[in-house]
């Protein structure tokens, strides 16, 4: 537990010290939203309708850059070996890293919300807590498998391509559920469906965090 927290703090500190990269990542999410708005056109009703989808596309595309970086900083100077010799338990390393990625993704998701309000005229006709929980669970569901795969491909040549190729098919369920819940929070939820989607997201999270936590040890030792 202490190791997990130490890794978590270390990763966030690295991000904090290299704030320019964080800003660049935020700009990337912003550009994705802009591009989507341009591609759809100026029809405000269509933009409003799909605002939830844009948030998650922006988060998803940015996440590949963010996750990739999370292990590149370890591999570049051979820090990963030192960490494992430390000795840091692989589970602690995974949960520390995954939590740090989760916090960053959540931050990224949160800052896209004012952007879609401005760009897409998004509204909140449903409950705000649904939106908040959907963001938390959705980004958590991305962070766990994302961290596992980032560790897997950290030492590969074509990792920029491999991460989305491996990760995106995997997180289709999370994407579906997160977009639906977010959309219900934005456009209103007359049938009270949002809770079912949130429960589904919670189940995915349990599965992904357990599975990734179990398998991570093997990945990092290889």
């Amino acid at each position, binding site marked *: 537990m202490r190791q997990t927290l130490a890794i978590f703090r270390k990763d966030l500190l690295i991000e904090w010290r290299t704030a320019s990269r964080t800003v660049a990542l935020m700009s990337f999410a912003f550009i994705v939203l802009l591009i989507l708005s341009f591609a759809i056109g100026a029809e405000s009703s269509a933009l409003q309708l799909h605002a939830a989808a844009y948030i998650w596309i922006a988060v998803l595309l940015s996440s590949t850059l963010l996750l990739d970086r999370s292990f590149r900083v370890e591999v570049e100077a051979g820090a990963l070996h030192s960490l494992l010799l430390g000795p840091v338990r692989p589970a602690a390393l995974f949960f520390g890293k995954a939590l740090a990625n989760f916090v960053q993704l959540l931050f990224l998701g949160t800052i896209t919300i004012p952007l879609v309000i401005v760009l897409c005229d998004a509204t909140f006709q449903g409950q705000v807590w649904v939106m908040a929980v959907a963001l938390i669970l959705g980004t958590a569901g991305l962070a766990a498998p994302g961290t596992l795969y980032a560790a*897997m491909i950290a030492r590969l040549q074509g990792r920029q391509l491999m991460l989305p190729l491996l990760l995106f*098919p995997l997180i289709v369920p999370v994407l579906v559920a997160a977009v639906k819940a977010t959309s219900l929070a934005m456009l209103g939820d007359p049938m009270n469906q949002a809770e079912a989607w949130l429960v589904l997201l919670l189940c995915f999270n349990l599965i992904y965090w357990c599975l990734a936590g179990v398998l991570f040890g*093997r990945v990092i030792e290889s």
Partner: protein
Amino acid sequence: MSFRWETIAGLLGVGLVAWGHYNGLFVAPPEAMMGDVGRILYVHVPTAWVGLTTYLLAFIAAIGALWTGKVGWDALVEASVEVGVVLNGLLLFQGSIWAKPTWGVYWTWDPRLTTSAVMVVAFGAIVVLRRMIDQPSRRLTLSAVATIVAFVNVPITYMSVKWWKTLHQNFSSPETVSSTMVTPLRVAAFGMLFLMVWMVTTRWRIGVKRLGEEAAAADMPAPPSPLSLGGEE
């Protein structure tokens, strides 16, 4: 060339598939609602069943590979993932051919279709991943982990997409199947299964040989590098 048991499986597979399809195409009655288009059933359904079985085999092999670290399991992961992706690709292809005259579109967001599409990408990525890793032990571990995660993800994807769609519309195809149709279907399915066994085994033998040679080469001491010698002189 010595005789191998999988040759029998292959021949048996070809025979059963041919017999099943002959009966399916010429003997069995046309499907009540879809007419002759429905006859794709005899190839499509076996492909789906056997495709999933192949992924199950890959999943089991992946657990075996992680557990033992043996080349044989690793080769089985490689073989079954590759054959599974081929069958899965065929499945999507056949499905689209069938869907156009039946539903009027090549593609629809049906849970099964969506799950198949996700599977082909997820397992296809594992084939690519294996090509990108040079170090044998790392390739074994990483592809096994990716296979396990991808397989576990199949039911989750299916469930989520089903839920996603059922909140919009109900998708159902009532299937009441007569025995004249069931027999050719079963025969064709077993034929496909034997073909799969033949393909996986043949691919597995190639894999064992290649991976074994690779491992043997890795065990040998590295030849002295001319660059490092040059520095001393």
